[in-house]
């Protein structure tokens, strides 16, 4: 089975070490590499009438911005380095959506960077990594 790696990133700069790790592995195993970015969104949030009517437009804008500012710079750089790489952007809960994308794309290893969150923040919100470890069907690598 050929391996498929997926790196989840928050912004184009902040996943550097995770990307470097994944690139290293992808090169060695000739793996396909996905760069994923999740736009935090909940299907159960409350919104105003006007927001709802503009939602579709906003979503398009959010997706466009995610591609141009987060995903594309990384994907273009890695493509230039000769890697088989593809960008993924989706709305949702970060951990759950990364899990869904991994299942959909037959990912064999999810790679995440670890952010220096405060203890309190981690306590209250949990971290994407630990949520994902619970849900994922493939190994999850957290790069410190």
């Amino acid at each position: 089975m050929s391996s498929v790696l997926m790196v989840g990133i928050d912004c184009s700069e902040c996943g550097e070490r995770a990307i470097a790790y994944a690139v290293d592995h992808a090169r060695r195993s000739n793996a396909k590499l996905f760069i994923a970015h999740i736009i935090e969104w909940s299907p159960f949030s409350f919104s105003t009438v006007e927001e709802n009517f503009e939602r579709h437009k906003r979503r398009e804008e959010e997706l466009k911005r995610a591609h141009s500012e987060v995903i594309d710079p990384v994907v273009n750089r890695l493509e230039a380095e000769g890697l088989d790489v593809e960008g993924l952007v989706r709305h949702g809960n970060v951990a759950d959506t990364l899990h869904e994308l991994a299942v959909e794309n037959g990912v064999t290893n999810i790679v995440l960077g670890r952010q220096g969150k405060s203890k309190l923040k981690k306590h209250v919100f949990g971290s994407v990594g630990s949520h994902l470890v619970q849900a994922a069907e493939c190994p999850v690598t957290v790069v410190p």
Partner: protein
Amino acid sequence: MSKLRVGITTLIGLFASFSAFAEAGIDERINLAIKPFADAVAGAVFSSFPVAGVQIPFVLVWLIVAATIFTFYFKFINLRAFKHGFELVRGDYHDPKAAGEVTHFQALATALSGTVGLGNIAGVAVAVSLGGPGATFWMILAGFLGMSSKFTECTLGVKYRNELPDGTVSGGPMYYLTKGLAEKGANFARLGKVLAVMFAIFCVGGSFGGGNMFQANQSFSQLVNVTGGDASWLADKGWLFGLVIAALVGLVIMGGIKGIARVTSKIVPFMAVIYVLAGLAIILMNFTLVPSAFGSIIDGAFTAEGIGGGVIGVLFQGFKRAAFSNEAGVGSAAIAHSAVQTSRPVTEGFVALYEPFVDTIVVCTITALVIIITGTWDPSVDPSSGVQLTSKAFESAFGWFPYVLTIAVLLFAFSTMISWSYYGLKSWTFLFGENKVTDASYKILFLFFVVVGSSMQLGSVIDFSDAMIFAMAFPNLLGCYFLLPMVKRELDEYWADYKSGKLVKTRLS
């Protein structure tokens, strides 16, 4: 930022022109000036005919007959799609590819925050004080039948909405009346245009009345109530309260300060939950009285001793306040629901069933039970006290509740105003075209009515508000009758797919 400046300048202008008249008695003057007009409008819309000695307004019969016909035509859709509606709200059929779009839950929550509000708090109190406990029974029945009207209009709202080139969506009766009826031929197309224009005119009126003046009026009344009643410093300063609210609403709709509306849209659901929990707590604390309360609701529904107009009078009060509270058949909800993302319009119809259910069957019934159980209801109570009666009922159990209720009422009123300003604006631009001048003129008028509404006495406000909102039901439901086959086709196709298991069920994360 220039938008903000325009907004603020307008508000300062409004404030200045009003404070110039800021002397004792301005409330009275506004009241006297508007009352004859309000009374005339109310008289026209509520033209009635006598049934068993009671004057029954035609519009009420119109609403109930339509809701009943729709219920039978769609073979009790309000019952048979109830479970599936819940699955849709829960996200069981959500397409992951559409993540980030407006979900069924969001469309319903937004529509509900436009309807759950003073109708449930003040309206129910009015119904129970004028019609006795029995009015509750008819209110629940009207809510149940109204679910079918909502189903119909919201399905149509999504089916015939406009998706504009810039990616925004626009929907509601204006669109299904024009586009839907046009599908039936040239004569219908003409009729559709007439109905759409009528609807838009009434919707603008409704946005000034029930969606605005009534809200301002009742929240002011409650604020005066908790700050000491007639002795309150605020008692004769409705105009001042109106100016403050107008300023806040103005910041949102003219100043582009969306943050206020966004925050409100997040607090309102919690206030609604607090209200419901407090109501349930009072009911549980007095659970021994619940059977007799239900007894008096059932007895009162069919006997009606001492109520003006007997049983018909009771029925009339219940139906009227239910319709005002859940707006089923009025068409306003069809605007809010049409923003949902779905390829099957009928799904939003199923979801919309929950609006009258939550609004009328759950929230209104809780309010009514609290009023009846706490014994606050008394035939001699002044019916124009509206929200104050509900406040008194809750206060008898929790002394601090009037303060919570005041905050809830202010927030409900505010969010309803924001929603209705949008409905009204969409109707206004449908009539006069979409440009900066029409946009600004509507918004200035809207703010003006906030001040007027706060200054008037409840009686005239309630009559005018009722009249405008109910008038919307004439063109809306007439159009809905003609469009029933279209809804039926959507429903049958979908239902066959649903029953045969063709629809993909996903778990929403």
